[in-house]
């Protein structure tokens, strides 16, 4: 038995966790006991200061961040139909292949310019580059497009 209220009772009073009867008894005691009233004010000060700091809040972006960390590579979300992915793959391959072949032929032409009649000119070699590109697309285009389509 104590002549004063305990810290736990004061704490429960602050949090509104007491019955009306208990609250009335403690409040009445606080009105007549400076020592307990001082402790009560100190505990209220702590609670109020902490409440003013603001809570940490979960945001939807955090869920996305968690999922991103689960398996980063699989989060690449390409949802293309097979025809569209084939078209993209074909155009990309053609552009790349034409560039490489044309540049290669231009380089060869410049190297062997002096041998004129033995080496085809860049212009006359372009159809050959185009043909090689078509063959490449036919071989690798379907494989690449399937890969893109599965990557969803």
């Amino acid at each position: 038995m104590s002549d004063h209220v305990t810290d736990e009772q004061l704490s429960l009073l602050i949090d509104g966790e007491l019955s009306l009867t208990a609250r009335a008894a403690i409040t009445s005691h606080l009105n007549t006991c400076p020592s307990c009233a001082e402790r009560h004010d100190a505990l209220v000060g702590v609670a109020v200061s902490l409440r003013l700091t603001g809570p940490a809040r979960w945001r939807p972006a955090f869920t996305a961040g968690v999922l991103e960390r689960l398996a980063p590579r699989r989060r690449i979300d390409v949802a293309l139909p097979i025809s569209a992915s084939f078209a993209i793959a074909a155009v990309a391959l053609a552009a790349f292949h034409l560039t490489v072949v044309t540049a290669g032929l231009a380089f060869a032409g410049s190297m062997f310019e002096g041998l004129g009649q033995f080496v085809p000119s860049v212009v006359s070699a372009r159809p050959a580059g185009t043909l090689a590109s078509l063959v490449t697309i036919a071989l690798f285009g379907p494989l690449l497009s399937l890969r893109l389509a599965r990557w969803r």
Partner: protein
Amino acid sequence: MEISLALQEAESVPTLDGVPTGRRLEQPSRATTPAEQLAVERAQQGDERAFAELVDRYGQPILSICYASTLDPAEAEDLAQEVFLAAWRGLRGFRGESAFSTWLFALARNRCVDRVRRASVRPRLAVEDHSEGHAAEDADASTRRTALAILAAAASLSLPLRQALLLRDVQGLGYEEIAELQEVPIGTVRSRIAAARAAVAEKADR
């Protein structure tokens, strides 16, 4: 004089010097629903969307306990994400012998203990990182300094006391929710919060 304690259910949003004491973040009911059970089973089979549902459901309480442990919003976010990553990796080992929430909260508590052992606690105000709509926005510099001093005093408490205090006074959780997160009887929560407040008040008074 003997003052008896008769507890009652928490009243509807009482206020403390103008600050609502009953302010709560949105906390889901922790009872395992059939939908949650299904989400857990799907997540165990590798379904990321089902796991995302669980992250959405338990993100706030996990972030709350992480912040109550680290006192640093950015670190709490990182730690909360680590908890969920650990949950994803360990989900196949979850046999359903306890509620999913119990399993997840235990995981979070262990991670918090590990983190606090590894690094010292350096308090930062949540408002420094999350400036959207709460009371501290309008608080003046003096109030912020006082709040930071109180947080610094809280940082020196033992982890269980610090968690109980901050889950109550910063995150606004009820006693029962704290008891569930800490997996202790509600009486222990009462005594922890009271002891923590008294200790912080004494430190702040020095």
